[in-house]
Structures are given as C-alpha cells and as structure tokens.
C-alpha cells in the first residue's frame, strides 16, 4: 500500500520490473521477482477459479500460475512466443509462497524514487484498488505498481472472479 511505502523512508528508491498486459503497463518490485520464464503448458488444477491457469513444475516445486488478463477481467488472448511467466515470491501470513503470473511481455526495469510514486486514484467503488501500490508516470505512460503480496495472497483465490 502507498502508506506502507511512504512510511518506510529509509528505502528511498526501488527497482521495479514493468510488463505489458493488453497494452497497459504494470510494475512489480524487482525484489519480489524470482525469475522470468517463457510460457509453457501447465497442469490444470480442478475446480480452481478461472484465472488460475494451473500448476507448473519449477525445479521440483509445484507453483500455481495465474493469468493476470483473466484476473483483471481483460479480454483473453492466445499465448504467443513472447508470452512470459513471471515467478514471484509472495509474503503472506502463512509464509512465503512462490506464484507465477502470465503477462504479455516484460518491458523494462525502472529505478523509481519513492517520492515519485503517486497515490493510487480513487476510482469509486466500481474498481477495486486494494491491489495497487501506486502510480508512476514514465515517458507519459502511466505504470500501475502492483502490491503482489495482496494481489497473489492464496487466501484471495476464492470466489473473486475479477478485480481492479
């Protein structure tokens, strides 16, 4: 959350990995990123919400993969050779979880000063902004910085078809 980020003044700037999703730019803290992989077929998890594509074998660990397009209720697109899976380490009450998200393409790593992160907009009750950390403007593009700990909390994987 923006407030947490503001409170932690010792961490004045951070690096963010930005990626493209249906023409929009999103960013996640690079320290949360474990690795970036090409898309490969995953095993379905029965009766899981539709944004959970399935489970992947990551060197012996079973990692759930989440399609952010479905999660954010965007239109579906065929996976292409540039489709990537970003493997993230998510902190939750239960500990650290490794979870992958599917994005159209990764674009850049940006150094972002804390002071430059703008408060997330108030979009009314229609759009849930709980999962946003804030907004950063880069070359006239708006980058939405995600709070992955909130977005990918396994407790949230139930009955919430689309958010944001």
């Amino acid at each position, binding site marked *: 959350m923006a407030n947490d980020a503001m409170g932690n003044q010792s961490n004045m700037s951070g690096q963010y990995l930005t990626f493209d999703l249906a023409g929009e730019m999103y960013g996640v803290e690079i320290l949360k990123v474990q690795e970036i992989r090409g898309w490969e*077929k*995953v*095993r*379905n*998890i*029965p*009766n*899981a919400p539709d944004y959970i594509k*399935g*489970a*992947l*074998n990551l060197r*012996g*660990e*079973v*990692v*759930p993969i989440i399609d952010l397009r479905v999660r954010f209720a965007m239109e579906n697109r065929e996976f292409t050779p540039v489709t990537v899976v970003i493997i993230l380490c998510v902190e939750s009450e239960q500990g650290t*979880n*490794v*979870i992958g998200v599917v994005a159209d393409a990764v674009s850049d790593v940006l150094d972002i000063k804390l002071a430059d992160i703008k408060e997330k907009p108030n979009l009314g009750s229609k759009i849930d902004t709980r999962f946003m950390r804030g907004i950063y403007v880069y070359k006239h593009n708006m980058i939405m910085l995600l709070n992955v700990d909130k977005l990918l909390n*396994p*407790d949230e*994987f139930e009955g919430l078809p689309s958010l944001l």
Partner: protein
Amino acid sequence: MSIDMAQFHQVFFEESFEGLDIMESGLLNLDMGDVDSEVINTIFRAAHSIKGGSGTFGFTAVSDFTHVMETLLDEMRDGRRQITQAAVDVLLGSVDCLREMLSAIQDENDIDEVSVAEHKKALEIELNGASGKDNSPATPVESPETVVIKEMESATESGWKISFCPHADLLKTGNDPVRMFRELSELGDLEVIVDLHGVPALFELDPEECHLSWTLILKGNVKREEIDDIFDWVEGECDLSIQELNLGEALVNMQQTEPSSLVEQTTPSDSLITENQENPELKKNIPTSSKPVQAKEKKSKGAASTSIRVDTGKIDTLINMVGELVITQSMLSLVGEHFSPDKIDHLKNGLVQLERHTRELQESVMNIRMLPISFVFSRFPRLVHDLSTKLDKKIELKLVGEHTEVDKTVVELISDPLVHLVRNSLDHGIEMPADRIAAGKPEVGLITLEAYHRGGNIVIEVKDDGKGLNKDFLRNKAIEKGLLDPDAVLTDKQCYELIFMAGFSTAEKVTDVSGRGVGMDVVRRNIQSLGGNIEITSHLGVGSTISINLPLTLAILDGQSIAVGDETFIVPLGSIIESIKINDNMVNRVAGKGETFRLRDEYLPIVRMHHVFNVKSAKATKLTEGLLVVVDGQGVRCGLFVDDLLGQQQVVIKSLEANYRRVEGVSSATILGDGSVALILDIPGLVRLSNQ
C-alpha cells in the same frame, strides 16, 4: 559476552533432552533389582553434562537444580548411599521437573517455580534433610514487587557481595572496571550498583580519574578464587571486600541503593555510564523498576526449528555415492563432447550407470530420514512403570524390534497413538493380579511392543495377554449408547472395530487413565492420516493384539496413473482394489441421478472423474466406454470412472499447499517423468465432492 550464545541453545536443548532420556531409562533399569555401578555412572554423566551446559548458557535455575540431583547421585555412585525405591522415584520426578524447566526455557516461558521448589525440597529431604537454610523455597509475600525477587531467589543458591572502591588513578594503570564486570557477569548473575557519591562537581572533574565505586552482587556457584583472579590486577589500587552473600541482606541493600542506580542512568558524566547503557547485559540486571515477570513475551513453540541426528555411516555412504555420480556425469559429458554414432554403446552404459547411481542416491537420502523405532519405544518402560504402580497391576513390558527404522515423520506422529494403545492395554487388557491367578495365568501380565517390516510397510504391534475383547459386551455397549442398530449383524472384526467409534467406552467409570470414550477414534484417524491402517485380533481370556500398518515413508508413494481426457492423475496404488470394464446392466441409478454399480453383492457409488473435476476433454462419457477403478480410501469405497489406465510408478509427493491451497479431492501433487505436474487423488475427498 562477545559470542552470541543463542545460536547454541538449540543444540544444548537437544542434548539435554537426550540426557534426560538417558537418565530416565537408567533410573528405570536401577529399580529392576541388581545395582550396576555403570548404570549409575551413566545417569551421573548425563546429569553432569546438563548441569555443565546449563551453567554455560546461564540457565542457573537448571544448573542449580541439577546440582542437587548430582549430589544425590554422587553419593549413590560412591556407595555411600543405599539405592532405595523412594530415592529413585524422587529422581524420576526430578527428571520430569527438569524436562519441564528446559522446555519452559526453550519456549521462553516462565519456569513453574512452585513445582521446581517442591522437587528440590523432595531431593533435599532425600539427601537426609541436609540444609534447608539457604535454599528452602522461601515464600515472600505475594505482591507484584516480590515476583522478581522470588524468581531471583529461587534461582540462586549462593553468591558473593563485592564492594569495589577503586582509587582515583585506577584508570591510568590501564585497568577498566567495565571489562572486569563483564568477566564477572560470565561467572554468574551479576547485579551492578554504582555509588556516585565520590563524583565531584563538573568543573572539578578530572576525566582521567575514577570517582565511582560499586557494589556488585554475583549469584551462582562461583568459587572465591575465580573472583580473586579477576581482581588480581587491581590489587593495591582499590579497596576491595568480598563477602559471601546473605540473600536477604543483599536484597535490602539493593533496594536501598536503588535510587542511586536511577541517578546513574540520568547522569551523563562518565564513560562508564555510557558503557552501562551500551551493555544491555549489565543494564538489564540493575533493578531500576520492578517489572512484573509476567510481562515477558511468550513465544510459541511453532517457531522452533527441528533437526535430526544422523549416523555418520549414512553420511559417508551418501558422500561416496555423490562421488560416483560426479564420475558418471563427467564420463557422460566426455561422451557428449565428441559424440559419434560408434560411441552409442558408451552412452548407453553411462546412462545405465547414471540410473543406478541416482536410485541408490535416492535410497540413501531417504535413509537419512529413517530413525529406529526405539525413539518411540524408549518412553514406554517409564509409562508402564508409572501406570502399573498406579493401577496396582504387575506388568512386564517386552520390546521387540526396536531397531526397525521408520521415517522421522512417522516416528513423531505415531508416538501419541501408541501411548494411547499401551494405556488401554494396561487399563482394560491386563487383569488385576488376583484375577490373573484365578484364571490360571501368571501373576505378572505381559505387554509386548513389536515392530517389524513387512513388504513396503512397517508393522507395529501392541500385544497383551490380558482378558481379550468380549464381542457381546462390545455389541451391547454400542447398542446401549445408540451407536449401533440392535438388528445389525456384525462379523467378529466389525465387532472389535466398534471400539474405534467416537463416543464408545466400555470402562465402568471414568478414570484419568481411560474411559472417556475419546481416544480410539483419534488413534485411528491419526494412523489413517499417515496412510496406514489399524487392526485388532483378540481371543477372549487369552489377550488381544492391535497391529498398526504404516507406510515406510511419507515422501514416496506407489501410484497408478490414470488418464481423464488430457489430464493425468495419480491414484495411490494401495487404495486400488481392482479395475473393471462395466456394462449397462451393472449400473443402477438412484432417483435418476446417483449412479451405483454392483460389485459382488455390494453397491458402490460411481464417481465420474470428468464431472467432478470438470475436465472437458474427456474421451469416455458413456460408462461403457471407459474404465471403472474400484478404490477404497479410509473405508470409503467407490468406483472412479476414468478414460484409461496409464502405468504404475513411484511418485515423489510434492505439496500443493506450499504455494497454493488445499484442493478438494486432491491430496498432493507430484512431478511426472516428463517434468509435468500431476495431482494425486484423495479418495474420501473425491466422494465428498461428487456427493455435492
């Protein structure tokens, strides 16, 4: 202290608990009759190392307590004291008390002072009531302020009061009181009280002179010489007096000087004061305020890391194997580097070797987790000893196959159910001595705990030669409690299994040993959660045997892979009864929906996998097109309707919950040979799911 001792605490606790186990089993062997000096020596050594360790880590309460035990043991060892049953019982009680103290310290909880004091008193009475004066548990008035004092007092046996008044030029000779205090604090609990009366006004102050004097109270078993050693260097440069501590007086002293110690903290005029603030070790010990002990943070046990002791032999084998593996790998890469078709034999050989090494490596890695079952069994002699005394029964316990190795997880999870079973055998199985003689049996009852391997499983048996289970009695009890339909026809086996039902109890009255009717159902559930099963055989008047069948390891499973459309699932091989192709006339529909099929006069529900898991790519949709896998999971039987059977394989169990969450109908995941993930089915969960 320059080294962070906390890092060694875990090891200390483990060793201490092991030591306690050794003491316990030694003590139990003692009361069997003949006195073996080697046994006493073993007990003594264990006690001694606990005392040493706790002293090193500053757990004075533990070391003081152990010291008293040690004194008693020492006299026994030298033959100065007869070994009596009473003494052994007191020592056993003290072992329990020590164990509680240690686990309290480990969990950072408060030690139960009352019970410690009680046990200590019992020990001292055993030591011929020697000296109640300096360590009898004095009972100060229970007011919040005295809590601290009480804690300190009961944690202490002896100590020293040191008045240290350095001459003004002490610092010039290169002596640093702070360093000396630090050394003192390593000897025991140190309280430092500073006297600021000698400090001149600021403009008169010579920073190179020492104007302070101290009263030090050092607690613990410290020798006078050790203190003298520390003050050796400043002899002649200070006024020093060292007195043996009288606790009451010391406390009064401390309270009197308390205000000045408060002053000290607020006067930033001397380097020593800043040092005091830097050194929490010293500062903490100054009673600036009477903080209630209760304010101490309580940490849960969950955070403790677990470790396991491994035989070095096992590690050596492992290292050898890794060596072999590296050699094979380099051989293969050599072949790969300059590959030509004529080297195909080379390659094949290498692959065969690789496979063999990998398998061996896997086996020996698994072996590391294996512990002998004696880890569980070793607690039973004590349990049987205590319980048989309590119930006035005469019982001999026989342990067979203690060296059988099982997975660590199994060892941890099986001990509680086993305790329950043994208690039951003791309480319900074995008769009173008089009844046994009347029945023509030996007076002493026999309980046998046996462990052995059978197939890929480990079998643990609890056998008693008691009165056995009475089928009619069980049946009537169950009907009486409304757990069973009076008209039900039961086989012998089903009759015995009544005791596993929740709420079933045959005990006439509830005792603290058994009779509440909870327990056996928990036992069975625990064992089933380990993937095992439990069976009873019994003969009236002759005895009963309860056998527990457990898989050797929880990390690897024999599985049958099945196909449903594009999906592959794994069914635990142990739960498959058979696989059949069915025709339409075997199928019945209940209310047009619930499908059942007949299998040898039994009607079982059909679980359509593609429905339950919503697999759209399923090939077989009509029951006659696919296969029915008849499975039995924890007593729940059903037929799984699948496209095809693929093959049998050993699969390594991977947690799905680690990164995701529980999925109904799935117990865990695994990784197939091609690197893809497959889900392992949970039969009872599947049945629940299909009923929704």
